[in-house]
């Protein structure tokens, strides 16, 4: 089984308004159901990504682009193919929606 890095692209914006408490409860339940369904694939639930710096020889600089535009969060899934990894990621509630998408990248380990 190969591992895949899932990067959440662009931050979830405020468009569409804030979810109500009842909607949050629903989102929470859906996320839980998704985790249960794909628990064999979920290696690392990851987390949100914050600020960062780019380190090159001799200098430490800010990131080339806004870090938030780069990625809002990450997680690692295992799957037998890129397609399967995409299936897992795209079924994740809240990950694929207007203003937010997910990039799935294979991790090559020796």
């Amino acid at each position, binding site marked *: 089984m190969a591992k895949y890095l899932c990067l959440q692209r662009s931050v979830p914006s405020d468009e569409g308004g*804030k*979810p*109500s*408490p009842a909607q949050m409860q629903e989102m*929470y339940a859906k*996320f*839980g159901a998704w985790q249960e369904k794909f628990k064999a694939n979920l290696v690392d639930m990851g987390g*949100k990504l914050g600020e960062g710096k780019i380190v090159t020889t001799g200098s430490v600089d800010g990131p080339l682009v806004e870090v938030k535009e780069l990625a809002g969060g990450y*997680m690692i899934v295992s799957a037998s193919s890129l397609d399967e990894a995409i299936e897992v990621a795209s079924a994740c509630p809240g990950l694929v929606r207007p203003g937010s998408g997910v990039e799935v990248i294979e991790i090559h380990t020796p």
Partner: protein
Amino acid sequence: MDKGHRLVEHFFRREYGRLVATLARQLGEQHLEIAEDAAQSALMAALESWARGSVPSNPSAWLFRVAKNEALQELRTRARRGRILRAETEAGTVLGSLAEPTEVEGDMLRMLFVCCDEGIPEPSRLVLALKTICGFDVPEIARRLFVSEANVYKRLSRARARLREGSRFPDCPAGEGAGMGEGVSEERVAREGAAREDDARSAYDARLSSVQKVLYVLFAEGHLSLHDEMPLRQELCDEAIRLTTMLATHVAGSSPETYAMLALMHFHVARMPARQDAGGGLLLLEEQNRALWDRQQILEGFAWLGKSATGDVYSRYHAEAAIAAEHCRAPSFQETRWDKIAESYALLEAQAPSPLHALNRALAIAEWKGPRAGLVALEKASPPSWLEGSQGGGSHYWPLVLADLHRRCGDDSEARRHGEAAIKLAPTEAIRALIARRLDM
């Protein structure tokens, strides 16, 4: 990893209400919006963090910590922008020193009383309570009350404007057995003394009937609504019962009227499962399968009714609870003690004059002494134009009752005339079908 992921029903809404109530007490309701935003942010943070990891062992404490920090940060931001008022600095100081909330129930009750500020128009009170205490957002409130979102916004902003300029409502008087726990309350009471407590008591007493009214309306919105979506209606009734129970079990709100109202609510929800047939059509009381009535709810109703029979006040809630109790007690429609019901309607009319009560009393008399007697009782009452329905507008209810009583007396042409008026005025398809079935039209 998937351990501890389950949260109780309505967890987010309940926590929202608690957070807002506690923060609003600490900050003062002048800063209600800061409290609401902080509660919202804390819940969002919880959603993000708990979904990935696990729920902390004390979720409420976790949420409170995050919400408190959010509120503090907002106050600091305002201070930096130079827009801070003295009151805000003080609020921040108090908030900063606040440990875990120890009197959440008191805070929730206090918020309920804050919603019933004399300067807030009545329609705004209900909406503010639904928003801050029950944790519904604007679209959800609009859907439940059958009004537009713009209307909800308008009512909310009126309420908030009033609270911003008003003075701070006192803390909830200590309940029996409360305040013996950790620090905050004990110190406060010791410091400020019993005089302060008495002032709080009278402030709460002065608003109690308004609070009861809001809860009554909340319940009625669920129970009497023409909404077809049963779960939404049930939810409003459940919220009303939850808050009224809180009121009834606290020293600030326990009164015979509160008990009577709570009894009334239990009697009504007990009968809700039997009001519709399998296809969602409405059923008449005499058609309902009484085996579907919720016995547990009826028992609770009688327990509160028993408690309400103290003191010398006989309120409209007592009368309504007495009527509902008679229905719940009767083994069948025919065996109902209609004389008692007619009597209670007469008392209710004396408490709260309304043509609807006159109408219901006539119906009870008709069952008791026959349809002709029911019609005679109605002759003495005159319906207001909005209830008569003869010329435009109006309710279907009055002509429906007339049609039904005439039909039972055998006056077919009169029955038909009123029946047609009733069908024309029926507000929903389900009610229209019910009338047609009842009148054989």
